[in-house]
């Protein structure tokens, strides 16, 4: 244990002097946080829609006014030809064409909606919104009281902004990056330079060296992630709903998984280039698939089952539940089971394959 602590202290000292490493592990997540923090400060963007007013009467003008008064929409009135182009270019979500007999008199006037069928998902989301708005306008114009007035009450204390969704994802991502770099990249570098061999000239055991490295990386990860979280809370007003100690536990658990995976990769790779490639192979798909930047639910159905079992997905999901929804870890048993399974698997691989000796080429 003594030797483990000596090793951990030494590696911490080395990292604390490595300004470049400190900068780069923090730079990426902070940049993302600040950009998205500023971008989502203004709330939801209105939906851009177009209207072709073929009727040009008082009634149609009132219709346009009503839509413009709705915060959901930003209205562009133009000719059909112009709007068609804009819809197909994606500048407008949709365009409504008001017929000439759009005058509020008896007899339904057909409104045509121009959409880009390639944006099927968006169209499906938009259509009810537009229909609702039209219904509301119709009631107002005809002076009808709604039969079932609906009052919407937001159950979440505050509406979720994108930054609130993103921050837990970025924290999980940082845990992965720092951990894999800490074990994987470092171990290959130490072995290539003969530093590992130099260490094993002394009576240090493999387990003591690994223990020291793990310990030092856990400390580094906790400090870096806490710093990021503090930035998010103080500067971006991101709320932490759940228990901070549970969050700490999750950071350590997640970090342990990726440290073990890093050791495993570091044992497979002989050169810096190889470990870089291997590292990218493991981390890049997870960055995109694990729900860091957008929810796994929004992914194609075929990918979802794969995405959900990636180690980063479990870390992202558990950290997000604690921070955003204030769920305790005991309320997330399946996610916890996933984390523990990944830890067991990666630890087994790490120990099974670890080698400090360089295999002669």
């Amino acid at each position, binding site marked *: 244990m*003594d*030797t483990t602590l*000596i*090793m951990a202290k*030494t590696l911490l*000292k*080395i990292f604390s*002097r*490595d300004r470049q490493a400190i900068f780069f592990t923090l730079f990426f997540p902070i940049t993302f946080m600040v950009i998205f923090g500023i971008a989502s400060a203004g709330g939801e963007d209105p939906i851009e829609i177009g209207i072709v007013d073929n009727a040009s009467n008082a009634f149609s003008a009132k219709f346009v006014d009503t839509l413009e008064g709705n915060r959901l929409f930003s209205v562009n009135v133009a000719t059909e030809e112009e709007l068609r182009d804009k819809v197909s270019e994606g500048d407008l979500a949709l365009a409504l064409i008001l017929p000439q007999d759009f005058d509020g008199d008896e007899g339904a006037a057909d409104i045509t909606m121009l959409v880009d069928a390639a944006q099927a998902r968006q169209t499906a989301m938009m259509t009810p919104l537009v229909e609702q708005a039209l219904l509301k306008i119709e009631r107002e114009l005809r002076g009808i009281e709604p039969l079932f007035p609906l009052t919407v009450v937001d159950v979440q204390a505050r509406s979720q902004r994108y930054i609130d969704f993103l921050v837990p994802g970025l924290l999980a991502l940082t845990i992965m990056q720092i951990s894999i770099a800490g074990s994987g990249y470092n171990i290959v570098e*130490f072995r290539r*330079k*003969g*530093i590992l*061999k*130099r*260490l*094993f*000239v*002394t*009576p*240090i*055991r493999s387990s003591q060296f690994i223990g020291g490295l793990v310990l030092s990386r856990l400390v580094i990860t906790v400090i870096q992630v806490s710093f990021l979280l503090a930035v998010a809370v103080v500067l971006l007003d991101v709320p932490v709903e759940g228990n901070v100690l549970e969050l700490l536990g999750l950071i350590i658990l997640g970090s342990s998984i990726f440290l073990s995976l890093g050791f495993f990769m570091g044992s497979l790779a002989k050169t810096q280039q190889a470990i870089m490639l291997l590292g990218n192979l493991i981390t890049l798909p997870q960055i995109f698939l694990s729900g860091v930047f957008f929810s796994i639910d929004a992914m194609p159905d075929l990918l979802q089952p794969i995405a959900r079992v990636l180690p980063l997905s479990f870390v992202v999901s558990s950290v997000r539940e604690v921070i955003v929804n204030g769920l305790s870890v005991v309320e997330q048993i399946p996610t916890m089971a996933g984390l523990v399974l990944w830890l067991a698997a990666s630890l087994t691989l790490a120990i099974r394959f670890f080698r400090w*000796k360089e295999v*002669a*080429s």
Partner: protein
Amino acid sequence: MAIVRADELVKEYPKPGSKTERFRAVNGVSLSIEAGEIFGILGPNGAGKTTTLEMIEGLTDIDSGEAFVDGINVEKEPNKAKEIIGVQLQANEYFDHLTLAELIGLFTRLFHRAKDPRELLARVNLEDKAAAKPAALSGGQRQRFSIASALVNEPKVLFLDEPTTGLDPQAKRNVWKLVEELNSRGMTIVLTTHNMEEAEYLCGRIAIMDHGKIVAEGSPQQLIMQHAPEPPEARLHGNLEDVFLKLTGHGLRE
């Protein structure tokens, strides 16, 4: 009794460019080194010198054969053996961002000893570099630092792997002086080299290795008498290196 003993050491590696074939980097090497000796293992690159040393040091697995240091089987009790040997490796890179004093301190603590790093650095004339990083050292300073880090546990046997390769004559002589000084205090020294002059100057006994085997063994004098062809005429003067040293002096240029 021999302080270092190797019996029929063998190390096999996969042949480069072949999946199934293997070659013997070390092919049945036996050594017996007495306490207090300076023993040299001489040979061209790729002869198996480093692999032989690393098997005795417990850094490379032994495929067959046995090695003992002061009666300790290095394969069965590697950590016990490591306590009494000092190892200087050919590659001498260290953790970035640590000073010489901090590195010596680290190695000392890994041996569970307490020692003033400055004292050890002073022994190799590096006390004024205590706060420097290894990257800032010259070749000779690096080599001396590397020897210093091998002395942290006050070893009975010191292994030096090509300690003067790449050094200028001044730095080389300086390392030789250090080796002689350590040996004069009773430390057994085992070194590899492909420098004949070094072997002749430092070593009481030499083993010449080639293709993984020892091809000759004895004192430099014995080997010269047995194997050297009669020179056409006796050389009356020193060699070019003596001239170089006479003109440029023995002072270190660092």
